[in-house]
Structures are given as C-alpha cells and as structure tokens.
C-alpha cells in the first residue's frame, strides 16, 4: 500500500459519502426484530455464555438435589411404616437389670438418659428382630446370635429348669439389653419377668421334672436293682419317703423273696401307724 493507493481509497470513501447510499428502512427493522426474537427464543444460550463456569453444572446440581430430597423422604416414610406410633429410640425399652418390672415408666426414666445419650442412629422402637440385632454392637449382639430365635424352643420355664439346676442367678445386663433391643416390648417384658419368677418356678419345675424322670425310669431302676440289694433297698427307702408305702411294701416283699438274707434297714421298713 502506497500513497497512491491511499488517495484512491480516500477518493472512494468521499464518493460513497457524497452518494449517501443506504439500505431501505425495512431491512433495518427486519434485522433488528429478528435479533430480538432470537434472544427471546434462546435465553438459555445467553445464560450459558454469561455464566460459563456454573451454567453447565447447575442443571445436574438441581437434579442431584431432587434425588437426594426424594431419597430422604422415602427413608423417613419407610421408618415411619416400620415404627408403630412413630416412637424413637429414646422411648424404646431400656436395658433391664435385676428383677424389676421393666415396663414401668420409672425404670425407663432411670435408664432412659443413658439410652438416649447413646449416639446411635434412630432405631424404631419395636423393630423386627434381625434389624435390631444388626443395630447392636458386636459384643452385645453375640449372645443373641448364640441363641437363634428362629429355632423352636421349649417354654422359657422348662428351658431354664433344664439348663440350670441351681437357682437362676440374675441375668446379665447384656442379655437383657439384647432382648430389649432385639425383640419387641412384649418380648423384653417376658424375658425381664423370667428372673423375677425364677426361684419359685424353678423349684416347682425341678420337682415335676424329677417325678417325671422317676416315673420314666422306674422300670429301668427295678431291673437294675435286681442284682444289687443295696440299691433295691435305697429304692424302697425312696418310696417310703415319697409316701408310696404300698409300692415300698411290694418292693420290700420282692426283695425278701429274692434276697432272704438281706439286712433291711429301718428306713425301708413300714413305719408304725402307716398301715
């Protein structure tokens, strides 16, 4: 580009300005109207350019928030369905110790703060056993797993009598806690009442069991005592003690027939006044 080219361009611009050529007014109106319509039709494109950093992630964020809120609402609804009356863990039966009635509100109030203070997540007051077992600590859950609840078990009294010939000691707190956490309120009360009824119930149970055992093994004892006069005599003494003197007399007669030289102790003889 030299000076002559500059003159040429300058002359051309002067000529264009002198002619004052311009397009029709309708062209301007049409173009500007179309430009305005384009903005109205695509506002999101303007937003995308204006906020390029956040515009792309705003929609996914809103979607994620909606999903999260929905999931929370569903979880709350499910918990309410599983929880009769919508009770929280603070109102659940606390761990029971001793022979006190666990259903009283006093016992709940006494042990409630400790239970309420536990930083565990909210658990339905009466959840199904498996769910409650999962919510326990491993140490507390171990006894519950040792006693599968699904297996058929004899009544609690019989079970205790068979397993513990001695008077049952107070159940450990962990067992009570397991029961209260694993079962419903009714289950917890049942287990908590067992220790309270244990002494008397176990006495009656032990006698009944021994009688049943003796009845079942009577024939076997008789057969075993045939060759052992001392055991036969002991058997007769036992019949005397039980007041079964007729049986004792019958056995004593058989003993004397079998062992005429056997020395009969006074305890095996029929006391005076019983005939």
């Amino acid at each position, binding site marked *: 580009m030299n000076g002559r080219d500059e003159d040429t*361009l300058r002359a051309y*611009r*002067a*000529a264009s300005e002198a*002619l004052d*050529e311009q397009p*029709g007014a309708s062209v301007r109106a049409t173009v500007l109207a*179309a430009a305005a319509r*384009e903005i109205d039709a695509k506002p999101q494109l303007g937003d995308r*350019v204006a906020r390029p950093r956040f515009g792309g992630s705003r929609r996914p964020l809103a979607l994620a928030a909606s999903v999260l809120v929905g999931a929370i609402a569903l979880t709350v609804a499910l918990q309410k369905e599983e929880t009769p009356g919508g009770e929280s863990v603070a109102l659940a039966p606390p761990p029971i110790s001793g022979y006190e009635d666990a259903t009283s509100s006093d016992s709940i109030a006494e042990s409630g703060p400790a239970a309420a203070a536990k930083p565990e997540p909210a658990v339905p007051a009466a959840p199904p056993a498996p769910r409650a077992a999962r919510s326990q600590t491993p140490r507390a859950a171990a006894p519950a797993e040792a006693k599968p609840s699904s297996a058929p078990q004899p009544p609690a009294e019989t079970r205790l009598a068979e397993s513990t010939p001695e008077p049952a000691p107070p159940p450990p707190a962990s067992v009570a806690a397991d029961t209260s956490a694993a079962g419903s309120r009714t289950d917890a009360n049942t287990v908590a009442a067992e220790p309270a009824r244990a002494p008397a119930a176990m006495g009656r149970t032990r006698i009944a069991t021994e009688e049943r055992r003796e009845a079942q093994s009577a024939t076997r004892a008789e057969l075993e005592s045939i060759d052992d006069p001392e055991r036969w005599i002991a058997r007769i003494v036992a019949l005397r003690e039980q007041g079964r003197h007729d049986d004792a007399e019958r056995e004593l007669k058989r003993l004397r027939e079998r062992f005429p030289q056997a020395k009969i102790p006074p305890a095996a003889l029929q006391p005076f006044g019983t005939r």
Partner: protein
Amino acid sequence: MTAVAQPASAGLAPIIRRVDDTPADEALLSAYARGDARAFARLYERHERPVYRFLLRALNGNAATADDLLQETWLAVVRNAVAWEPRARFTTWLYTIARSKLLDHWRARVPVVSLDDEAVNDPDQTALAADETAQPEVRVLSRAQARTFVAAVELLPAAQREAFLLHAEGGLSVDELAQATGVGFETAKSRLRYAMTRLRSAMADWR
C-alpha cells in the same frame, strides 16, 4: 462509527483502525450472544452501510437486490451469533457471509460466474458485470464525480472489485482477503493491486 485512515506503513495492511475506546465488534457480538440486543443494534449500525455498499457495488447498483442480500447477511449473523468463535475478526466473518450471499445470488441467475476464476484476474479481460454498465459520464459536480468513481469501481473485473471492496469497505487485510475469498495470499494481493491500478487510471481520466 469513529474510524480514521492510518498511514499505509505496512504494505496492504488494513487502513481503517478504531482509535477510540468504543467496544470492538467481537465484544459487541459476545454481548449480543449473552442477550444484549442493544449491542447487536450498535454492531449493525456500525457495519450496515459498508456492507450495503459492498453488495451494491458488487451488484452494479442494484439497490433492491442489495437490500435483500444485506438482510440475508445479517439474519445469518443473528442465527450464528451464539456459535461464533473469535478465531478471526468479526468483519472477516461478516464479509465472508455477505460474499457467500452474493455467490448464491449469482449462481441462481448466472451459473457460469465464478469469482475465483483466474481469468478475471487478467486486467485485459473484460469483467462479467462491466458489460451491463454504461461508461460513466464525467461531470464536474461532486456528486456526479462520486457516481463516476463508483461506476469505475463497478466496472472492475469481479474478483478485483471484490478484493477492492472487501479492503475498502470491510478493512480486510490481504491475509483476511485471502481467507475470506478462499484464495492464496499472492492471488489476493495481485487482485487488489490490479484494482487499485485501474481505479487510478479512471481517476486520471476523470480529472
């Protein structure tokens, strides 16, 4: 539009530069893409007449067709404003669109016309559009002189005329000319040089 002619210090570098602090074309187009309709109005106001003259000269003064093609050009800008990326100057993009509208118009009417035909680069050959225009009448009136000069532009071979108009109206450099017209740098440079030479001759005759 505030623009001044700068001294030609670098060959065929653009002679029109913006010297004020008004927003650049690219900034205005980006503002429009963000929803600023006034930015588009300013952009349109800035380039309306140069683009119109480019079309009008290329069409040998056919004002009605120039209006139609001007409208089509700017509607294309509107449709593609959001997708536009500033890889080149806005004016390069704008005049490329206007040129494509011209080509579409000519293809519809005169299928054999090709601006890229090397034959039209020969200054000895008669331009296709020049035959339709009568020889400009030399007058002493400034307005008449203006018409004569414009007629001389319109008498240029199509490729040279295009190169001259893109340079004079759009301020495109030789590089941008080559990019807009799809030819090599040397071809664009020679086209522009031939156009300047012919116009100077016309000015000498006219004076």
